[in-house]
């Protein structure tokens, strides 16, 4: 088992190398002149040349690539052009709010979505099924920030139940932390819930049609154990795949959710960097988030062995 994990971890390296090549090519072969854009309007040619030299943009492209990759291998993502601090430490400082938001969203969304999907499949064709599918279609169509402002309007401005915006670290207490994360997690999680509930329902319907499910019913297994132990366990692999792939939705949504609710996380770091054209930050966060995505999907791959012994070996 340890051997498998080490081998899979190593298999991340080529994927991340290709990610690095893609990011570099897309950002460096773009037609615009980044130095001129970063400098803004009303600047002299010397100023632009200075920025170009600072970013190493005056070097040949292949050399820029090697310098960048060499730094990446040492965990160096460059320095912010505005703050001057290393990008990696800026990301580390902002990691706690983003991780909190990601954690609450994942836990709530996955539990809720699988529950909804199982329920819809068990009661297929009834109003329960229609409500779940309705939520699913809506979740795909309403953008994160529209859901976010809708929740803020109802639960903060009208009912005054929860704060409008902001973040409280866990060190100030569990309840303030949770109160501030409740609305952002719902807003961020809705599309994810839609995705997982839909795939859960589809795969559960396929499994429920299997012969061994009829046998389970015939020998008198109670409904709950039948659905959870017999059916859900066999539907777990496709669901886990979508849980992993759907993390892409969460990563994109984090940037917008943190803006709506003014949460000082990694997403805000990127959005602030847009206005300042601080592109080492944008590039660094892309690499980190891509790494997270690849890693989460690796964990999902490894989890298959828990659900399905046939995958082992």
């Amino acid at each position, binding site marked *: 088992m340890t051997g498998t994990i080490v081998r899979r971890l190593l298999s991340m390296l080529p994927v991340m190398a290709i990610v690095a090549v893609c990011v570099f090519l897309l950002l460096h072969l773009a037609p615009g002149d980044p130095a001129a854009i970063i400098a803004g309007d009303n600047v002299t040619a010397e100023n632009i040349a200075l920025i170009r030299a600072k970013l190493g943009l005056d070097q040949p492209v292949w050399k820029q690539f090697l310098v960048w990759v060499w730094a990446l291998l040492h965990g160096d993502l460059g320095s912010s052009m505005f703050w001057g601090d290393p990008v990696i430490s800026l990301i580390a400082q902002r990691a706690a709010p983003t991780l909190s938001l990601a954690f609450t969203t994942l836990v709530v969304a996955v539990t809720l979505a699988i529950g909804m999907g199982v329920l819809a499949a068990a009661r297929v064709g009834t109003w329960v099924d229609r409500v779940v599918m309705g939520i699913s279609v809506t979740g*795909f*169509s309403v953008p994160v920030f529209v859901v976010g402002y809708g929740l803020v*309007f109802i639960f903060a401005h009208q009912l005054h139940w929860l704060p409008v915006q902001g973040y409280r670290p866990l060190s100030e207490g569990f309840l303030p932390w949770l109160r501030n994360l409740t609305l952002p997690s719902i807003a961020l999680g809705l599309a994810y819930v839609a995705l997982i509930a839909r795939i859960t329902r589809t795969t559960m319907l396929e499994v429920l049609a299997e012969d061994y499910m009829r046998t389970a019913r015939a020998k008198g297994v109670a409904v709950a154990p039948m659905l959870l132990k017999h059916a859900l366990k066999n539907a777990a692999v496709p669901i886990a795949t979508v849980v992993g792939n759907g993390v892409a939705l969460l990563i994109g949504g984090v940037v917008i959710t943190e803006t709506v609710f003014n949460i000082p996380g990694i997403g805000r770091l990127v*959005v602030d960097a847009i206005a300042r054209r601080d*592109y080492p930050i944008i590039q660094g*966060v892309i690499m980190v988030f891509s790494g997270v995505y690849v890693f989460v999907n690796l964990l999902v791959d490894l989890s298959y062995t828990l659900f399905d012994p046939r995958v082992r070996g």
Partner: protein
Amino acid sequence: MSGALRFVRRNPTIAVGALMLLAVALAAVFAPLIAGDPLLLVPIDRLLPPSAAHLLGTDHLGRDVFARAVYGARISLIVGLSVAVVSIAIGLAIGLAAGYWRRFDAVVMRFMDGLMAIPSILLAIALVSLNRASVGIVIVAITIPEVPRIVRLVRSVVLTVREMPYIEAAVSGGSPARKIILRHILPSTIAPLIVQGTYITASAILVEAGLSFLGAGVPPEIPTWGNMIAGSRLYVGRAPWTIFAPGVLLALVILAVNLLGDGLRDRLDVRLARRM
């Protein structure tokens, strides 16, 4: 007429989705006829609630929300359609080649895996911020992350079709590769591409709104649903119409495109993993 009615009854999702889109498209095309000036500032009329003079009220600068929403539809539709067309054109070419020539396939698919791992909204943010803001660059930035999805889809169709006896017959009959691809393989990709195209349109409209909302979209002087919401974010409690008029429109248009896609998928009978 009865033929059209029968079509609507058998395909309600296609009909509802198409009608909603048609209404928005007509409003967008004839915007100057139905709406006033979206840029006109009337400071004395700030944050007015919806009324006969201002159907959807006014924003914090006294601009007419209805006029801005109607003009905003233009950007959403242009970006959504352009991204779908361009990503399908590029993805189709790469996918056909990758499915047919195995050596090309090995290299290209590794790059597609890499591209798929990059969060698309971040990649788009980076591309837009490194160039002067324009509608064109927004389209390019949203198109690039969509291409691998099309490539995968087309490639999987080609890999299935190329094992069919009629391809074998064409090969042994001496047809050139170009003819086999264009005459015998390409037609099988059309139905799944139409369905995938609608989903890409929906996702492109969503991403464009997100980029505009974050300030990494089209130039700020062009009204879009995303930058309308961003501009009004401080007034959500006092003037909810400034946020929810563009927000609800955005959701309805994306819902319409998704309904159309689901309807077409069922009607054309293509088995597709929805998104992802």
